């Protein structure tokens, strides 16, 4: 992976976001360069989605600056998307929003997403996994410089999300686009990332995945703070990928689920 192009695609400094009287983000800095995969992790309500939506421009920060590279093309995959049942929208029509796309590019996008037969299927009739892959296919049709994914594997089973992440890595190496991902599936995500940002209203720690995984701030957040599922993921992750590192302390909660 090349990190030689030094001008960042998005550079945010000192972001402060207030939502309904509460401070959702406090003095957050964020930078991403071409081709990087950055994962944002953090417990529920830690401002992960808020940060992503602020970087896109959907939320106006009350302080701080965001600089996007001129002409930056963003491919955004939201956490969830409700399509009004009264809106007759086929998969092909959805893929051509907002810009019309040639039929062969739509067919190619569907093939790549592994959904060649769903061209005329209504969006409201898709399964959760199919829907996520259509969202990704649409984001890729715009040939983005940066792909922004908000918990893209929510509702997918282990196998489904592993496939999804494999596809993201393929896409990155094919298109050379940067990827920002919000997730709590730490065991899968962290191994695929160049950089991990651990968020809890502010940036707790950030860096290479193995550095963050052993950082005390990270373990304070995921080891004891959220007990169940998150700790279990770390547990799995440690066994799967960190054989040559010393095992971190296991709390009893880690085994609770």
């Amino acid at each position, binding site marked *: 992976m090349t990190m030689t192009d030094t001008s960042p695609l998005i550079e945010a400094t000192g972001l402060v976001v207030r939502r309904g009287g509460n401070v959702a983000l406090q003095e957050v800095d964020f930078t991403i360069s071409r081709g990087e995969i950055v994962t944002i992790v953090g417990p529920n309500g830690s401002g992960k989605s808020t940060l992503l939506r602020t970087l*896109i421009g959907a939320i106006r920060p009350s302080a701080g600056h965001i600089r996007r590279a001129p002409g930056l093309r963003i491919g955004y995959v*939201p956490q969830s*998307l409700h399509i009004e049942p009264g809106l007759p*929208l086929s998969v092909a*029509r959805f893929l051509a929003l*907002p810009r*019309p796309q040639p039929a062969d590019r739509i067919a190619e996008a569907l093939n790549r997403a592994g959904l060649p037969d769903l061209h005329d299927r209504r969006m409201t009739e898709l399964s959760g996994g199919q829907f996520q892959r259509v969202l990704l296919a649409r984001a890729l049709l715009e040939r983005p410089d940066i792909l*922004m994914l908000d918990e893209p594997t929510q509702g997918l089973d282990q196998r489904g999300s592993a496939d999804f992440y494999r596809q993201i890595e393929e896409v990155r190496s094919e298109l050379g686009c940067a990827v920002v991902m919000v997730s709590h599936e730490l065991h899968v995500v962290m191994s695929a990332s160049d950089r991990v940002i651990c968020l809890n209203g502010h940036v707790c720690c950030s860096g290479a995945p193995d550095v963050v995984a052993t950082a005390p701030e990270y373990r304070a957040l995921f080891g004891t703070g959220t007990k169940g599922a998150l700790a279990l993921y770390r547990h799995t992750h440690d066994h799967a990928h960190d054989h040559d590192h010393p095992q971190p302390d296991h709390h009893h909660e880690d085994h609770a689920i």
Partner: protein
Amino acid sequence: MLDDFMIRAALAGIGTALAAAPLGCFVVWRRMAYFGDATAHAAILGVALALALEMPIFGGVLVAALAMGLTVSALSGHGFATDTLLGVLAHSALAFGLVAVSFLSGVRVDLMGYLFGDILAVSVADLAVIWGGAAAILILISRRWSALLTSTVSPDLAIASGIDPRRAQYVLTLALALTIAIAIKVVGALLISALLVIPAATARSLARSPESMAMLAAGLGSLTTLGGLALSYQLDTPTGPSIVCVAAVLFVLSLTAAAARR
């Protein structure tokens, strides 16, 4: 040909139906039916304004509907549930409008005509306003169709693609105010929402794409107007309500057709 009042009525109805169809689809997709209602009720306030200032009814209604639409757009999301807000504004606007009209002493106002429409009294000048307004609405919506549709599917997806969804809201508010201003003569302030929502809801169970739904709604709306006119002529019933009755019957038939197809 335009000398015949029935011909003028039919042309007025079709012009209104064509303008209302694509807008009505957005009203259905964005769940704005109540929003349309509130804006339409403000039309009576606009009528009072126009009569008091001796300006054309079209202008008064347009201003009042636009003001109401922008007020609701600005207030929603500031602590009030939108349907509560709309409930307050819709009926207040109607009540203030009715009271305001009653103050206009010396002016003999046919209130029924503004509440339920007076399509049989459409003049050639009215026709020009209706078709001019309809053309403006159709041009406005078709030129921004893709951005409007993307903003409707998801404001965040629109923003990521460089589209401002607030702009879509303004475009639709403007189109809605224009539609109300041209439709008040045809079906009246109380029934305008019906002309927006019912043809679109009827097309919904038959259409396969957003575009075909808008076109189907336009066809159904025109058919509805002609059917309502014929019904009113045959049975000597009030025309505006007759049009809405036909629309409602077509809606029920479309549900039956959709159920039979499954």
